[in-house]
Protein backbone atom coordinates (compact mmCIF):
# COMPACT_ATOMS: atom_id res chain seq x y z
CA UNK A 1 0.00 0.00 0.00
CA UNK A 2 1.32 3.38 -0.99
CA UNK A 3 0.67 6.86 0.30
CA UNK A 4 -0.72 8.46 -2.86
CA UNK A 5 -1.20 12.22 -3.23
CA UNK A 6 -3.50 13.43 -6.01
CA UNK A 7 -3.77 17.05 -7.07
CA UNK A 8 -7.44 17.88 -7.64
CA UNK A 9 -8.57 20.05 -10.50
CA UNK A 10 -11.62 22.20 -10.21
CA UNK A 11 -13.00 24.91 -12.38
CA UNK A 12 -15.74 27.27 -11.20
CA UNK A 13 -16.28 25.17 -8.09
CA UNK A 14 -16.78 21.85 -9.90
CA UNK A 15 -14.35 18.94 -9.72
CA UNK A 16 -13.09 17.51 -12.98
CA UNK A 17 -14.15 13.99 -13.83
CA UNK A 18 -10.48 13.21 -14.50
CA UNK A 19 -9.70 14.02 -10.84
CA UNK A 20 -12.44 11.71 -9.57
CA UNK A 21 -11.12 9.00 -11.91
CA UNK A 22 -7.67 9.22 -10.26
CA UNK A 23 -9.02 9.31 -6.71
CA UNK A 24 -11.37 6.39 -7.29
CA UNK A 25 -8.68 4.28 -9.00
CA UNK A 26 -6.03 4.92 -6.36
CA UNK A 27 -8.45 4.10 -3.58
CA UNK A 28 -9.81 0.90 -5.15
CA UNK A 29 -6.21 -0.25 -5.65
CA UNK A 30 -5.89 -0.15 -1.86
CA UNK A 31 -3.79 2.98 -1.47
CA UNK A 32 -3.95 5.53 1.33
CA UNK A 33 -5.31 8.28 -0.90
CA UNK A 34 -4.73 11.95 -0.14
CA UNK A 35 -6.01 14.83 -2.25
CA UNK A 36 -4.53 18.31 -2.45
CA UNK A 37 -7.31 20.74 -3.31
CA UNK A 38 -6.37 24.31 -4.26
CA UNK A 39 -8.64 27.26 -4.87
CA UNK A 40 -10.61 30.00 -3.21
CA UNK A 41 -13.75 28.91 -1.38
CA UNK A 42 -13.58 25.26 -2.43
CA UNK A 43 -13.94 23.53 0.97
CA UNK A 44 -17.38 22.30 -0.12
CA UNK A 45 -15.76 19.89 -2.61
CA UNK A 46 -14.05 17.83 0.10
CA UNK A 47 -17.20 15.79 0.71
CA UNK A 48 -17.37 14.65 -2.92
CA UNK A 49 -13.67 13.70 -2.88
CA UNK A 50 -14.34 11.64 0.24
CA UNK A 51 -17.14 9.74 -1.50
CA UNK A 52 -14.78 8.80 -4.31
CA UNK A 53 -12.21 7.39 -1.87
CA UNK A 54 -10.06 10.24 -0.51
CA UNK A 55 -8.94 9.54 3.06
CA UNK A 56 -7.57 13.04 3.65
CA UNK A 57 -8.18 16.28 1.75
CA UNK A 58 -5.40 18.85 2.17
CA UNK A 59 -7.11 22.15 1.59
CA UNK A 60 -5.17 25.13 0.20
CA UNK A 61 -7.45 28.16 0.06
CA UNK A 62 -6.35 31.69 -0.81
CA UNK A 63 -7.46 34.50 -3.12
CA UNK A 64 -4.18 33.96 -5.08
CA UNK A 65 -5.36 30.42 -5.82
CA UNK A 66 -8.72 31.42 -7.27
CA UNK A 67 -7.25 31.18 -10.77
CA UNK A 68 -4.76 28.40 -11.46
CA UNK A 69 -1.09 29.29 -11.77
CA UNK A 70 1.78 26.86 -12.22
CA UNK A 71 4.00 28.80 -9.86
CA UNK A 72 1.62 28.86 -6.88
CA UNK A 73 0.36 25.31 -7.48
CA UNK A 74 3.80 23.76 -7.74
CA UNK A 75 4.94 25.58 -4.62
CA UNK A 76 2.00 24.34 -2.49
CA UNK A 77 2.15 20.79 -3.89
CA UNK A 78 5.91 20.45 -3.32
CA UNK A 79 5.57 21.52 0.32
CA UNK A 80 2.69 19.15 1.09
CA UNK A 81 4.30 16.18 -0.66
CA UNK A 82 7.58 16.76 1.19
CA UNK A 83 5.95 17.26 4.59
CA UNK A 84 3.97 14.01 4.34
CA UNK A 85 6.65 11.86 2.69
CA UNK A 86 4.34 10.84 -0.18
CA UNK A 87 5.25 7.67 -2.09
CA UNK A 88 3.39 8.57 -5.27
CA UNK A 89 2.06 11.88 -6.62
CA UNK A 90 -0.54 11.91 -9.41
CA UNK A 91 -2.25 14.56 -11.53
CA UNK A 92 -4.31 14.37 -14.70
CA UNK A 93 -2.50 15.05 -17.98
CA UNK A 94 -4.75 18.04 -18.65
CA UNK A 95 -3.55 21.52 -19.65
CA UNK A 96 -3.25 22.19 -15.90
CA UNK A 97 -1.61 18.96 -14.70
CA UNK A 98 0.93 18.85 -17.49
CA UNK A 99 1.86 22.48 -16.82
CA UNK A 100 2.83 22.35 -13.13
CA UNK A 101 3.90 18.73 -12.49
CA UNK A 102 7.35 19.04 -14.13
CA UNK A 103 8.19 21.89 -11.76
CA UNK A 104 7.27 19.73 -8.77
CA UNK A 105 9.47 16.94 -10.15
CA UNK A 106 12.39 19.31 -10.69
CA UNK A 107 12.08 20.77 -7.21
CA UNK A 108 11.94 17.32 -5.59
CA UNK A 109 14.75 16.04 -7.83
CA UNK A 110 12.71 13.02 -8.95
CA UNK A 111 11.34 11.61 -12.20
CA UNK A 112 7.94 12.29 -13.75
CA UNK A 113 6.21 9.98 -16.22
CA UNK A 114 3.79 12.01 -18.35
CA UNK A 115 0.54 11.11 -20.06
CA UNK A 116 0.36 7.57 -18.66
CA UNK A 117 -2.45 5.28 -19.75
CA UNK A 118 -1.75 2.49 -17.25
CA UNK A 119 -0.58 2.58 -13.64
CA UNK A 120 0.60 -0.47 -11.68
CA UNK A 121 1.13 0.01 -7.94
CA UNK A 122 3.73 -2.32 -6.41
CA UNK A 123 3.98 -1.64 -2.70
CA UNK A 124 5.19 1.93 -2.53
CA UNK A 125 6.55 1.80 -6.09
CA UNK A 126 4.88 2.58 -9.39
CA UNK A 127 5.29 1.23 -12.91
CA UNK A 128 3.58 2.91 -15.81
CA UNK A 129 2.83 2.55 -19.47
CA UNK A 130 2.63 5.52 -21.75
CA UNK A 131 2.15 5.99 -25.47
CA UNK A 132 5.09 7.50 -27.36
CA UNK A 133 5.27 8.86 -30.92
CA UNK A 134 1.64 9.87 -30.36
CA UNK A 135 0.60 6.26 -29.84
CA UNK A 136 2.63 4.67 -32.62
CA UNK A 137 4.37 2.74 -29.80
CA UNK A 138 3.74 2.01 -26.12
CA UNK A 139 6.53 2.35 -23.57
CA UNK A 140 6.86 0.57 -20.26
CA UNK A 141 8.56 3.11 -18.04
CA UNK A 142 10.35 2.63 -14.73
CA UNK A 143 11.61 5.18 -12.26
CA UNK A 144 15.29 5.37 -11.33
CA UNK A 145 16.54 6.33 -7.85
CA UNK A 146 14.58 7.30 -4.75
CA UNK A 147 10.93 8.50 -4.85
CA UNK A 148 8.42 9.89 -4.64
CA UNK A 149 7.16 8.65 -8.02
CA UNK A 150 5.36 11.30 -10.08
CA UNK A 151 2.99 10.68 -12.96
CA UNK A 152 0.37 12.50 -14.99
CA UNK A 153 -2.44 10.32 -16.32
CA UNK A 154 -4.44 10.62 -19.54
CA UNK A 155 -8.15 11.22 -18.88
CA UNK A 156 -10.48 8.22 -19.41
CA UNK A 157 -7.62 5.70 -19.05
CA UNK A 158 -8.40 4.19 -15.65
CA UNK A 159 -12.11 3.48 -15.88
CA UNK A 160 -15.21 5.27 -14.67
CA UNK A 161 -15.01 6.65 -11.12
CA UNK A 162 -17.44 5.13 -8.60
CA UNK A 163 -18.71 7.04 -5.58
CA UNK A 164 -19.55 5.33 -2.28
CA UNK A 165 -22.17 7.46 -0.58
CA UNK A 166 -21.51 7.76 3.12
CA UNK A 167 -17.72 7.78 2.87
CA UNK A 168 -16.06 10.95 4.13
CA UNK A 169 -12.58 12.44 4.11
CA UNK A 170 -10.68 14.10 6.92
CA UNK A 171 -10.02 17.75 5.98
CA UNK A 172 -6.70 19.44 6.81
CA UNK A 173 -6.38 23.19 6.28
CA UNK A 174 -2.95 24.18 5.02
CA UNK A 175 -1.03 27.27 6.09
CA UNK A 176 0.25 28.92 2.94
CA UNK A 177 3.07 31.24 2.04
CA UNK A 178 2.41 32.71 -1.40
CA UNK A 179 4.65 35.77 -1.30
CA UNK A 180 7.11 36.68 -4.05
CA UNK A 181 5.29 35.08 -7.00
CA UNK A 182 6.74 36.04 -10.39
CA UNK A 183 3.64 35.27 -12.46
CA UNK A 184 0.14 36.64 -12.21
CA UNK A 185 -2.96 35.32 -13.97
CA UNK A 186 -4.82 38.45 -15.04
CA UNK A 187 -7.96 36.89 -16.47
CA UNK A 188 -9.47 33.78 -17.98
CA UNK A 189 -11.63 34.33 -21.02
CA UNK A 190 -13.97 31.35 -21.09
CA UNK A 191 -14.40 29.37 -24.25
CA UNK A 192 -18.03 29.71 -25.24
CA UNK A 193 -18.55 26.40 -27.02
CA UNK A 194 -20.19 24.74 -24.03
CA UNK A 195 -18.66 21.47 -25.20
CA UNK A 196 -15.95 19.46 -23.42
CA UNK A 197 -12.33 19.50 -24.56
CA UNK A 198 -11.41 16.70 -26.98
CA UNK A 199 -8.85 15.32 -24.48
CA UNK A 200 -11.41 15.01 -21.69
CA UNK A 201 -14.61 14.03 -23.48
CA UNK A 202 -15.93 10.46 -23.28
CA UNK A 203 -17.16 10.78 -26.85
CA UNK A 204 -15.46 12.66 -29.71
CA UNK A 205 -17.12 13.33 -33.08
CA UNK A 206 -14.45 14.34 -35.59
CA UNK A 207 -14.52 15.65 -39.14
CA UNK A 208 -12.07 15.84 -42.00
CA UNK A 209 -11.62 17.91 -45.12
CA UNK A 210 -14.53 16.07 -46.76
CA UNK A 211 -16.81 18.28 -44.67
CA UNK A 212 -15.89 20.90 -47.34
CA UNK A 213 -16.34 24.00 -45.14
CA UNK A 214 -16.63 25.28 -41.58
CA UNK A 215 -20.41 25.63 -41.87
CA UNK A 216 -20.89 21.89 -42.46
CA UNK A 217 -19.30 21.12 -39.08
CA UNK A 218 -22.67 22.18 -37.63
CA UNK A 219 -23.83 18.69 -38.63
CA UNK A 220 -21.20 17.18 -36.36
CA UNK A 221 -21.96 19.69 -33.60
CA UNK A 222 -25.56 18.56 -33.66
CA UNK A 223 -24.52 14.91 -33.14
CA UNK A 224 -22.01 15.98 -30.47
CA UNK A 225 -24.61 17.97 -28.55
CA UNK A 226 -27.02 15.03 -28.46
CA UNK A 227 -24.24 12.89 -26.93
CA UNK A 228 -22.51 15.50 -24.75
CA UNK A 229 -19.49 14.94 -26.95
CA UNK A 230 -16.56 17.07 -28.09
CA UNK A 231 -16.02 18.01 -31.73
CA UNK A 232 -12.60 17.12 -33.15
CA UNK A 233 -10.99 17.61 -36.54
CA UNK A 234 -8.24 16.21 -38.72
CA UNK A 235 -5.18 18.28 -39.54
CA UNK A 236 -6.45 18.75 -43.09
CA UNK A 237 -9.68 20.30 -41.78
CA UNK A 238 -7.75 22.55 -39.38
CA UNK A 239 -5.27 23.64 -42.04
CA UNK A 240 -8.21 24.45 -44.33
CA UNK A 241 -9.52 26.74 -41.57
CA UNK A 242 -12.71 24.75 -40.81
CA UNK A 243 -11.84 24.35 -37.11
CA UNK A 244 -9.39 25.93 -34.64
CA UNK A 245 -6.13 24.10 -33.90
CA UNK A 246 -7.30 23.30 -30.38
CA UNK A 247 -9.74 20.77 -31.88
CA UNK A 248 -7.06 18.98 -33.94
CA UNK A 249 -6.64 15.29 -33.16
CA UNK A 250 -3.35 13.68 -34.13
CA UNK A 251 0.39 13.78 -33.67
CA UNK A 252 0.66 17.55 -34.12
CA UNK A 253 -2.61 18.20 -32.31
CA UNK A 254 -4.12 16.38 -29.36
CA UNK A 255 -3.94 12.71 -28.54
CA UNK A 256 -7.30 11.43 -27.34
CA UNK A 257 -8.60 8.23 -25.81
CA UNK A 258 -12.39 8.49 -25.53
CA UNK A 259 -14.87 5.65 -25.08
CA UNK A 260 -16.27 6.39 -28.54
CA UNK A 261 -14.55 8.12 -31.47
CA UNK A 262 -16.63 8.88 -34.56
CA UNK A 263 -14.50 9.81 -37.60
CA UNK A 264 -16.55 11.48 -40.32
CA UNK A 265 -14.88 12.01 -43.68
CA UNK A 266 -11.42 11.38 -42.26
CA UNK A 267 -9.23 9.19 -44.45
CA UNK A 268 -6.88 8.23 -41.59
CA UNK A 269 -3.38 9.58 -42.21
CA UNK A 270 -0.78 7.91 -39.98
CA UNK A 271 -0.53 11.07 -37.84
CA UNK A 272 -4.29 11.08 -37.24
CA UNK A 273 -4.48 7.36 -36.43
CA UNK A 274 -1.68 7.87 -33.91
CA UNK A 275 -3.80 10.46 -32.13
CA UNK A 276 -6.96 8.38 -31.67
CA UNK A 277 -6.25 4.68 -32.01
CA UNK A 278 -6.42 4.02 -28.25
CA UNK A 279 -10.10 5.02 -28.29
CA UNK A 280 -12.19 2.14 -26.99
CA UNK A 281 -14.70 2.04 -29.86
CA UNK A 282 -14.00 3.65 -33.24
CA UNK A 283 -16.61 4.42 -35.89
CA UNK A 284 -15.59 5.48 -39.40
CA UNK A 285 -17.88 7.07 -41.96
CA UNK A 286 -16.23 7.58 -45.33
CA UNK A 287 -17.17 7.37 -48.98
CA UNK A 288 -13.88 5.63 -49.88
CA UNK A 289 -13.99 1.94 -48.88
CA UNK A 290 -10.18 1.79 -49.11
CA UNK A 291 -9.60 4.65 -46.62
CA UNK A 292 -7.03 3.60 -43.97
CA UNK A 293 -9.39 4.73 -41.19
CA UNK A 294 -11.39 1.51 -41.75
CA UNK A 295 -8.35 -0.54 -40.64
CA UNK A 296 -8.76 0.74 -37.08
CA UNK A 297 -12.57 1.11 -37.07
CA UNK A 298 -14.76 -1.25 -35.04
CA UNK A 299 -17.77 -0.15 -37.07
CA UNK A 300 -17.50 1.17 -40.60
CA UNK A 301 -20.02 2.87 -42.84
CA UNK A 302 -19.11 3.34 -46.47
CA UNK A 303 -21.36 6.13 -47.56
CA UNK A 304 -22.06 9.80 -48.02
CA UNK A 305 -21.51 11.54 -44.69
CA UNK A 306 -23.90 14.33 -45.71
CA UNK A 307 -26.69 11.74 -45.61
CA UNK A 308 -25.42 9.46 -42.85
CA UNK A 309 -24.51 12.09 -40.23
CA UNK A 310 -27.92 13.83 -40.10
CA UNK A 311 -29.58 10.39 -39.93
CA UNK A 312 -27.25 9.50 -37.05
CA UNK A 313 -28.24 12.63 -35.13
CA UNK A 314 -31.88 11.53 -35.34
CA UNK A 315 -31.09 7.95 -34.25
CA UNK A 316 -28.96 9.08 -31.30
CA UNK A 317 -31.79 11.39 -30.20
CA UNK A 318 -34.16 8.42 -30.14
CA UNK A 319 -31.77 6.39 -27.97
CA UNK A 320 -31.18 9.32 -25.60
CA UNK A 321 -34.90 9.95 -25.22
CA UNK A 322 -35.55 6.40 -24.01
Amino acid sequence: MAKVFIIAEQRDGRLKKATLELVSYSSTQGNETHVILLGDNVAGLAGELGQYGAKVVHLAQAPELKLYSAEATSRVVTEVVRAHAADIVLASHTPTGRDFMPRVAGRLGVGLASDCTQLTFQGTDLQVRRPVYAGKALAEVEFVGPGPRLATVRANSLGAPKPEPGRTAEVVNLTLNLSGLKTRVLEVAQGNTGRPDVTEASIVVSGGRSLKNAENFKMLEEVADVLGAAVGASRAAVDAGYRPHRDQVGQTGKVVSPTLYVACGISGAIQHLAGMRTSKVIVAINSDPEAPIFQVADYGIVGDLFQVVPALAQEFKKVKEH
Partner: protein
Amino acid sequence: MNITVCIKQVPDTETRIKLNADSTWIDTTGIKWIVSSYDEFAIEEALRLRDKNPGSTVTVLSAGPLRVVDAIRNALAMGADNGIHIELPESADNNMAAKALAGALKKEAKVDVVFTGKEAIDDGAAQTSQLIAEYLDFPHVTVVLGAEYGPESIKCRREVEGGAIEVVEAQYPVLIAAQKGLNEPRYASLPNIMKAKKKEVKVLKMADVGVSESDQKIRIKSLQLPPPKQAGKKIAGDAATQAQELVRLLHEEAKVV
Protein backbone atom coordinates in the same frame (compact mmCIF):
# COMPACT_ATOMS: atom_id res chain seq x y z
CA MET B 1 18.36 41.16 -25.40
CA ASN B 2 19.89 37.77 -25.03
CA ILE B 3 17.28 35.49 -26.60
CA THR B 4 17.64 31.71 -26.59
CA VAL B 5 15.67 28.84 -28.09
CA CYS B 6 15.83 25.20 -26.99
CA ILE B 7 14.81 22.78 -29.72
CA LYS B 8 14.49 19.02 -30.18
CA GLN B 9 15.10 16.88 -33.21
CA VAL B 10 12.42 14.21 -33.72
CA PRO B 11 11.42 11.63 -36.34
CA ASP B 12 9.27 13.07 -39.13
CA THR B 13 5.54 12.57 -38.42
CA GLU B 14 5.27 10.32 -41.52
CA THR B 15 7.63 7.81 -39.86
CA ARG B 16 6.36 4.28 -39.38
CA ILE B 17 7.87 3.36 -36.04
CA LYS B 18 9.82 0.08 -35.90
CA LEU B 19 11.55 -1.31 -32.83
CA ASN B 20 15.18 -2.33 -32.34
CA ALA B 21 16.17 -5.99 -31.80
CA ASP B 22 15.61 -6.07 -28.03
CA SER B 23 12.58 -3.71 -28.11
CA THR B 24 14.22 -1.12 -25.87
CA TRP B 25 14.27 1.70 -28.43
CA ILE B 26 13.07 2.49 -31.91
CA ASP B 27 14.99 1.33 -34.94
CA THR B 28 16.42 4.63 -36.19
CA THR B 29 17.63 3.37 -39.58
CA GLY B 30 16.12 5.30 -42.45
CA ILE B 31 14.34 7.81 -40.22
CA LYS B 32 14.06 11.34 -41.56
CA TRP B 33 14.76 13.75 -38.70
CA ILE B 34 13.05 17.10 -38.40
CA VAL B 35 12.81 19.99 -35.93
CA SER B 36 9.82 19.24 -33.69
CA SER B 37 6.83 21.18 -35.10
CA TYR B 38 6.12 23.42 -32.09
CA ASP B 39 9.81 24.39 -31.88
CA GLU B 40 9.49 26.15 -35.25
CA PHE B 41 7.08 28.63 -33.65
CA ALA B 42 9.60 29.15 -30.85
CA ILE B 43 12.42 29.88 -33.33
CA GLU B 44 10.23 32.29 -35.32
CA GLU B 45 9.15 34.16 -32.19
CA ALA B 46 12.78 34.52 -31.08
CA LEU B 47 13.79 35.95 -34.47
CA ARG B 48 10.91 38.45 -34.47
CA LEU B 49 11.74 39.60 -30.94
CA ARG B 50 15.41 40.03 -31.89
CA ASP B 51 14.54 42.09 -34.97
CA LYS B 52 12.41 44.45 -32.86
CA ASN B 53 15.27 44.94 -30.38
CA PRO B 54 18.45 45.97 -32.20
CA GLY B 55 21.63 44.57 -30.70
CA SER B 56 19.90 41.35 -29.61
CA THR B 57 21.09 37.85 -30.49
CA VAL B 58 19.34 34.51 -30.86
CA THR B 59 21.20 31.42 -29.65
CA VAL B 60 19.76 27.99 -30.45
CA LEU B 61 20.47 25.01 -28.21
CA SER B 62 19.78 21.33 -28.64
CA ALA B 63 20.81 18.35 -26.50
CA GLY B 64 21.26 14.88 -27.94
CA PRO B 65 23.44 12.74 -30.19
CA LEU B 66 25.53 14.22 -33.02
CA ARG B 67 22.58 14.18 -35.47
CA VAL B 68 20.85 17.06 -33.61
CA VAL B 69 23.42 19.48 -35.07
CA ASP B 70 21.31 19.29 -38.26
CA ALA B 71 18.34 20.66 -36.33
CA ILE B 72 20.51 23.49 -35.00
CA ARG B 73 21.64 24.23 -38.58
CA ASN B 74 17.98 24.42 -39.64
CA ALA B 75 17.37 27.06 -36.99
CA LEU B 76 20.51 28.93 -38.04
CA ALA B 77 19.24 28.84 -41.63
CA MET B 78 15.98 30.42 -40.46
CA GLY B 79 18.13 33.26 -39.09
CA ALA B 80 19.38 32.41 -35.60
CA ASP B 81 22.88 33.74 -34.78
CA ASN B 82 24.65 31.01 -32.80
CA GLY B 83 24.21 27.36 -31.96
CA ILE B 84 25.12 25.20 -28.99
CA HIS B 85 25.06 21.41 -29.11
CA ILE B 86 25.16 19.56 -25.80
CA GLU B 87 26.14 15.93 -26.28
CA LEU B 88 23.69 13.55 -24.64
CA PRO B 89 23.02 9.85 -25.18
CA GLU B 90 19.95 8.83 -27.23
CA SER B 91 18.28 7.36 -24.12
CA ALA B 92 18.52 10.56 -22.01
CA ASP B 93 15.22 11.39 -20.29
CA ASN B 94 13.49 14.78 -20.04
CA ASN B 95 15.25 15.58 -16.78
CA MET B 96 18.73 14.99 -18.20
CA ALA B 97 17.91 17.06 -21.27
CA ALA B 98 16.50 19.91 -19.19
CA LYS B 99 19.46 19.90 -16.82
CA ALA B 100 21.88 19.93 -19.76
CA LEU B 101 20.06 22.79 -21.51
CA ALA B 102 19.73 24.81 -18.28
CA GLY B 103 23.40 24.12 -17.52
CA ALA B 104 24.44 25.45 -20.92
CA LEU B 105 22.19 28.51 -20.53
CA LYS B 106 23.78 29.30 -17.16
CA LYS B 107 27.15 29.51 -18.90
CA GLU B 108 25.78 32.17 -21.27
CA ALA B 109 25.62 35.90 -20.55
CA LYS B 110 22.43 36.84 -18.66
CA VAL B 111 19.53 35.29 -20.58
CA ASP B 112 16.34 37.36 -20.96
CA VAL B 113 13.97 34.93 -22.66
CA VAL B 114 14.08 31.19 -23.37
CA PHE B 115 11.70 30.00 -26.07
CA THR B 116 10.68 26.35 -26.52
CA GLY B 117 7.85 24.41 -28.18
CA LYS B 118 4.97 23.42 -25.87
CA GLU B 119 5.89 19.75 -26.29
CA ALA B 120 8.02 17.56 -28.52
CA ILE B 121 6.04 15.45 -30.95
CA ASP B 122 8.07 12.28 -30.28
CA ASP B 123 7.62 11.52 -26.58
CA GLY B 124 4.89 14.16 -26.12
CA ALA B 125 5.85 14.49 -22.46
CA ALA B 126 5.59 18.30 -22.25
CA GLN B 127 8.10 18.34 -19.37
CA THR B 128 11.42 19.67 -20.59
CA SER B 129 10.36 23.33 -20.94
CA GLN B 130 9.07 23.63 -17.38
CA LEU B 131 12.09 21.72 -16.03
CA ILE B 132 14.49 24.11 -17.77
CA ALA B 133 12.60 27.03 -16.18
CA GLU B 134 12.76 25.31 -12.80
CA TYR B 135 16.52 24.74 -13.02
CA LEU B 136 17.06 28.37 -14.08
CA ASP B 137 14.59 29.61 -11.44
CA PHE B 138 12.64 31.42 -14.19
CA PRO B 139 8.84 31.64 -14.33
CA HIS B 140 7.32 29.81 -17.30
CA VAL B 141 4.25 30.18 -19.47
CA THR B 142 3.26 27.22 -21.66
CA VAL B 143 0.93 26.78 -24.66
CA VAL B 144 1.40 30.43 -25.63
CA LEU B 145 -0.70 31.78 -28.51
CA GLY B 146 0.32 35.43 -28.24
CA ALA B 147 2.83 37.53 -26.33
CA GLU B 148 3.32 41.24 -25.69
CA TYR B 149 6.88 42.04 -24.66
CA GLY B 150 6.96 44.90 -22.13
CA PRO B 151 10.06 46.39 -20.49
CA GLU B 152 9.63 44.52 -17.16
CA SER B 153 7.35 41.66 -18.00
CA ILE B 154 5.69 39.66 -20.75
CA LYS B 155 1.95 39.39 -21.07
CA CYS B 156 0.93 36.07 -22.65
CA ARG B 157 -2.27 34.57 -23.91
CA ARG B 158 -2.20 30.84 -23.24
CA GLU B 159 -4.63 28.19 -24.38
CA VAL B 160 -6.32 26.06 -21.75
CA GLU B 161 -9.14 23.55 -22.14
CA GLY B 162 -12.35 24.03 -24.02
CA GLY B 163 -11.12 27.06 -25.92
CA ALA B 164 -10.61 29.17 -22.79
CA ILE B 165 -7.72 31.65 -22.91
CA GLU B 166 -5.70 32.64 -19.85
CA VAL B 167 -3.90 35.96 -19.77
CA VAL B 168 -0.72 35.62 -17.71
CA GLU B 169 1.88 38.22 -16.82
CA ALA B 170 5.38 36.93 -16.08
CA GLN B 171 8.52 38.82 -15.07
CA TYR B 172 11.79 38.58 -17.00
CA PRO B 173 13.81 36.46 -17.30
CA VAL B 174 11.14 34.03 -18.47
CA LEU B 175 10.58 30.82 -20.42
CA ILE B 176 7.85 30.82 -23.06
CA ALA B 177 6.62 27.54 -24.60
CA ALA B 178 5.01 28.11 -27.98
CA GLN B 179 1.72 26.72 -29.28
CA LYS B 180 0.82 26.53 -32.98
CA GLY B 181 -0.74 29.86 -33.91
CA LEU B 182 1.79 32.04 -32.08
CA ASN B 183 3.14 33.11 -35.47
CA GLU B 184 3.75 31.82 -38.99
CA PRO B 185 7.27 30.35 -39.13
CA ARG B 186 9.39 31.46 -42.09
CA TYR B 187 11.12 29.17 -44.54
CA ALA B 188 14.90 29.27 -44.73
CA SER B 189 16.09 30.99 -47.92
CA LEU B 190 18.87 29.42 -49.97
CA PRO B 191 21.44 32.16 -49.15
CA ASN B 192 20.61 31.73 -45.46
CA ILE B 193 21.05 27.96 -45.71
CA MET B 194 24.52 28.58 -47.19
CA LYS B 195 25.34 31.14 -44.49
CA ALA B 196 24.15 28.77 -41.75
CA LYS B 197 26.82 26.27 -42.74
CA LYS B 198 29.49 28.77 -41.74
CA LYS B 199 27.94 29.79 -38.41
CA GLU B 200 29.57 28.46 -35.28
CA VAL B 201 28.01 25.60 -33.36
CA LYS B 202 29.66 25.26 -29.97
CA VAL B 203 29.88 21.73 -28.56
CA LEU B 204 29.53 21.02 -24.85
CA LYS B 205 29.92 17.70 -23.09
CA MET B 206 27.78 16.47 -20.19
CA ALA B 207 30.52 17.30 -17.69
CA ASP B 208 30.71 20.89 -19.03
CA VAL B 209 27.08 21.48 -18.07
CA GLY B 210 27.10 19.58 -14.78
CA VAL B 211 25.09 16.57 -15.93
CA SER B 212 25.81 12.94 -15.10
CA GLU B 213 24.13 9.56 -15.60
CA SER B 214 22.52 9.96 -12.16
CA ASP B 215 20.32 12.73 -13.58
CA GLN B 216 18.37 10.12 -15.51
CA LYS B 217 15.16 9.73 -13.47
CA ILE B 218 12.96 7.60 -15.71
CA ARG B 219 13.91 4.83 -18.12
CA ILE B 220 12.10 3.01 -20.88
CA LYS B 221 12.20 -0.69 -19.95
CA SER B 222 10.61 -1.85 -23.16
CA LEU B 223 8.66 -0.63 -26.15
CA GLN B 224 5.75 -2.33 -27.84
CA LEU B 225 3.89 -1.63 -31.03
CA PRO B 226 0.15 -1.24 -30.50
CA PRO B 227 -1.65 -4.56 -31.09
CA PRO B 228 -3.22 -4.76 -34.56
CA LYS B 229 -6.95 -4.22 -34.52
CA GLN B 230 -9.43 -6.93 -35.53
CA ALA B 231 -11.27 -6.13 -38.72
CA GLY B 232 -14.38 -4.17 -37.82
CA LYS B 233 -17.98 -4.60 -38.93
CA LYS B 234 -19.04 -2.87 -42.14
CA ILE B 235 -22.64 -1.74 -42.05
CA ALA B 236 -24.53 -1.98 -45.33
CA GLY B 237 -27.76 -0.43 -46.61
CA ASP B 238 -28.96 3.09 -47.35
CA ALA B 239 -28.03 5.99 -45.09
CA ALA B 240 -31.10 5.66 -42.86
CA THR B 241 -30.58 1.90 -42.39
CA GLN B 242 -26.85 2.35 -41.76
CA ALA B 243 -27.46 5.03 -39.14
CA GLN B 244 -30.15 2.98 -37.42
CA GLU B 245 -28.00 -0.18 -37.34
CA LEU B 246 -24.89 1.70 -36.14
CA VAL B 247 -26.74 3.28 -33.24
CA ARG B 248 -28.27 -0.10 -32.32
CA LEU B 249 -24.79 -1.71 -32.28
CA LEU B 250 -23.27 1.14 -30.24
CA HIS B 251 -26.14 0.91 -27.79
CA GLU B 252 -26.65 -2.85 -27.48
CA GLU B 253 -23.33 -4.45 -28.46
CA ALA B 254 -20.59 -1.92 -27.62
CA LYS B 255 -22.72 -0.29 -24.89
CA VAL B 256 -21.03 3.07 -25.32
CA VAL B 257 -24.13 5.24 -25.81
